[in-house]
């Protein structure tokens, strides 16, 4: 493969690739994103490969290509398999289903109803992926090609129009024009803070110094968020293309992508993307003959949430501990190796090629007045359609959770949705009609964050949620500044005490003071936003705190010290399953007689409730 030396050569290649593809020929997209992988999709892929090979050898079937794609988004229904061009969507596919799929669908042209999606409300079967409400209600821009291309093959990206923004930027636009376009588009940072991207680029471009860096923050530390990972796993070139364009606009020749260590597949796919882009002349020396040089290095995180903060991330790339520093001097002026550095989130970079291709006004037509474009969320927790979703900014929480998300799993009452990760807050039922945009979420006491959206139902204890986030942050604090390090320790101690039934009236005032000092005196955003989970749950769920403190009661039935497990005599058949499994031998009873739990011995582990087939164990 000789390096492409001009935009014309790239277009020639694109046309060639497209011409080689037969739109009428069947091919199968199998999701190998981490979620489906965890459900066994690799085995499905292998089985399909074997089944097809057998039939090819027996001359029964034409070539049916299998594309192993990145995350297709509907994680709840994984392993996923989509047959093109018919767009037939099969869910919960097992290796044992493969033979039938080949016989019935690929060869016979018939669908297998047990593998098809069934709408839970209407009970209707939906054959095509596009028609499934989960997908239909989204606006998939960054995720458009996630389920259709092989992330390890650059030609797939080129075939769907990838790397068309790059020549446009390099050859027909000046750097300042590019920056103007990004500014006019209204694109705001997708890492959480929502700073206007174009303005950041301009500051970096204008900062004095010849050596500048662009960085992609793929640390994605928010527990429950995996949007960034999915984008890199399924479409790494979309991020790379954005970075190259940004580097050109800013005047940088060296980029870094910082991927958290827990994402080995993302690292692998991005590494491959870099290799291939280099090979094709789209990265490295004299890109497409433009005279512009740009290279990218991959740095892996070391398992530290704080390294998602930009100054800590920079310190980590420099080979140091992830201690943030004060931002009197901004990273765009003095960042990596003290040079002007432009750091953006994965999703921010992935938006850039779209904006360059289709223009600032097109982008600005999506979303709201102050929050343009789409928002990506990992919609998880007590929600029916767990998965990765992309919706226009301004959609309401209700539409997102109920229309796209399919409502609360378990059929129980919706209680709250948590956004913004450990820096965010919980939004209650009353505010479900809030639009999803930067300002609305912040005013409600939460924030957009990077995109984790966790749905909670009546079985979620909000005090426990506050404690959980505080424990997380306490563990992840770098420990440099007193207010964050000691403040979180104290906050956790108070919350732990409340959850253990040792809460006192004075705890609430103490918590408020602690929240004030952690928010007011901390060095970096980990500290200053750390009180948000506590503050938002105090604001909307104060009653739960008071129940824990005054009544020593956990309304949601979660906090162990405040609940008891009891066997309902009417339902208990005396089968003895719980008795056998109880680790403390706390359950007694004769065969076929109702059993009883000795509260003195019970450690509330919940095993009895798990193994009981008669729903006879209740938590009160």
């Amino acid at each position, binding site marked *: 493969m000789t390096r492409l030396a001009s935009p014309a050569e790239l277009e020639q290649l694109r046309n060639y690739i497209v011409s080689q593809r037969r739109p009428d020929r069947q091919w199968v997209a199998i999701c190998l*994103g*981490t*979620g489906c*992988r*965890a*459900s066994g999709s690799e085995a499905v892929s292998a089985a399909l490969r074997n089944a097809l090979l057998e039939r090819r050898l027996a001359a029964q079937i034409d070539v049916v290509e299998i594309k192993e794609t990145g995350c297709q988004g509907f*994680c*709840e229904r*994984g392993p996923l398999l989509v047959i093109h061009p018919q767009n037939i969507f099969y869910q919960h596919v097992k290796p044992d289903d493969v033979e039938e799929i080949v016989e019935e669908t690929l060869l016979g042209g018939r669908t297998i109803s047990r593998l098809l999606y069934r709408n839970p409300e209407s009970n209707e079967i939906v054959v095509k992926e596009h028609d499934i409400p989960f997908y239909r209600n989204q606006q998939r821009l960054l995720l458009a090609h996630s389920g259709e291309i092989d992330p390890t093959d650059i030609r797939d990206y080129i075939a769907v129009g990838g790397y068309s923004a790059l020549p446009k930027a390099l050859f027909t636009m000046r750097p300042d024009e590019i920056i103007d376009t990004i500014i006019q588009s209204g694109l705001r940072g997708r890492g959480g803070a929502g700073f206007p991207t174009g303005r950041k680029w301009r500051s970096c471009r204008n900062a004095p110094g010849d050596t500048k860096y662009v960085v992609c923050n793929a640390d994605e*530390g*928010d*527990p*429950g*968020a*995996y949007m960034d*990972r*999915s984008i890199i796993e399924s479409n790494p070139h979309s991020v790379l293309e954005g970075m190259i364009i940004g580097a050109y606009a800013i005047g940088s020749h060296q980029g870094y992508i910082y991927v958290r*260590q*827990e*994402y080995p597949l993302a690292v692998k796919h991005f590494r491959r993307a870099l290799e291939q882009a280099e090979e094709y002349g789209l990265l490295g020396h004299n890109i497409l003959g433009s005279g512009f040089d740009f290279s990218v290095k991959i*740095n*892996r*995180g*070391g*398992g*530290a*949430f704080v390294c998602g903060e930009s100054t800590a991330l920079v310190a*980590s*790339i*420099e*080979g*140091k*501990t*992830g201690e943030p520093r004060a931002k009197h001097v901004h990273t765009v002026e003095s960042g990596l*190796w003290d040079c002007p550095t432009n750091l953006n989130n994965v999703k921010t970079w992935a938006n850039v090629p779209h904006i360059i291709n289709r223009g600032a006004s097109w982008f600005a037509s999506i979303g709201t007045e102050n929050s343009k474009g789409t928002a990506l969320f*990992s919609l*998880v*927790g*007590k929600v029916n359609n*767990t*998965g990765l979703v992309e919706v226009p900014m301004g959609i309401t929480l209700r539409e997102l959770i109920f229309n796209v998300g399919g409502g609360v799993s378990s059929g129980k009452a919706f209680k709250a949705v*948590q956004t913004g*990760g450990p820096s965010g807050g919980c939004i209650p039922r009353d505010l479900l009609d809030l639009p999803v945009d930067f300002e609305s979420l912040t005013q409600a006491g939460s924030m957009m964050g990077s995109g*984790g959206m*966790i749905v*909670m139902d009546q079985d*979620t204890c909000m005090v426990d*949620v506050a404690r*959980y*986030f505080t424990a*997380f942050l306490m563990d992840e604090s*770098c420990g440099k500044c007193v207010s964050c390090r000691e403040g979180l320790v104290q906050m956790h101690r108070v919350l732990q005490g409340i959850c253990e039934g040792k809460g006192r009236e004075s705890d609430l005032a103490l918590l408020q003071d602690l929240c004030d000092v952690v928010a007011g005196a901390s060095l970096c955003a980990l500290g200053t936003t750390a009180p948000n989970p506590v503050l938002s749950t105090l604001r909307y769920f104060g009653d739960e705190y008071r129940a824990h403190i005054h009544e020593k009661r956990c309304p949601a039935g979660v906090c162990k010290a405040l609940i008891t497990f009891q066997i309902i005599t009417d339902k208990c058949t005396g089968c003895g399953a719980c008795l056998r*499994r109880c*680790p403390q031998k706390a359950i007694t009873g004769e065969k076929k007689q109702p059993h009883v739990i000795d509260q003195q011995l019970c450690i509330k*582990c*919940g*095993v009895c409730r*798990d*193994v009981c087939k008669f729903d006879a164990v209740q938590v009160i």
Partner: protein
Amino acid sequence: MELDLTRVEEIIDKYRDERGGLIGALQDIQESFGWLPQPALRRLSEELGYPMNRIYSVATFYKAFSLTPRGRHVCKVCMGTACHVRGAPRILEEIERQLGIGPGETTADKTFSLDIVNCVGACAIGPVIDIDGEHKGNLTPGKVAAILKEYREAT
């Protein structure tokens, strides 16, 4: 203990000209040996010029690194928010009870090491644990014993 230092030399060569390559080198050593043996760190210090205190500070800051050998099987419990809401703490407690160790520790017979991770990205099948890179999802405390037995008895 016997240490194959040739692997360490390879890693050192790879990062010799990397500005800020300390963390990458440590990651490669961790991957190769399953932990960061002191002799390996000393070689790193001698060859790449990082003082030992700097290496130790970085090695103890990041959770990815272990300064003690790990067990044959590494069990990571996902404590991400989605898994938490679906009952991950109970899974962790059950594992702790079965193995007799806490997060960051290794069983005396060196069979298992236990860790906590924040979000492996398999939220749809939470609560999830990752044992030796394999994900086990849709867990309940009742299923834990069988899984641990499976790995304990595996060669």
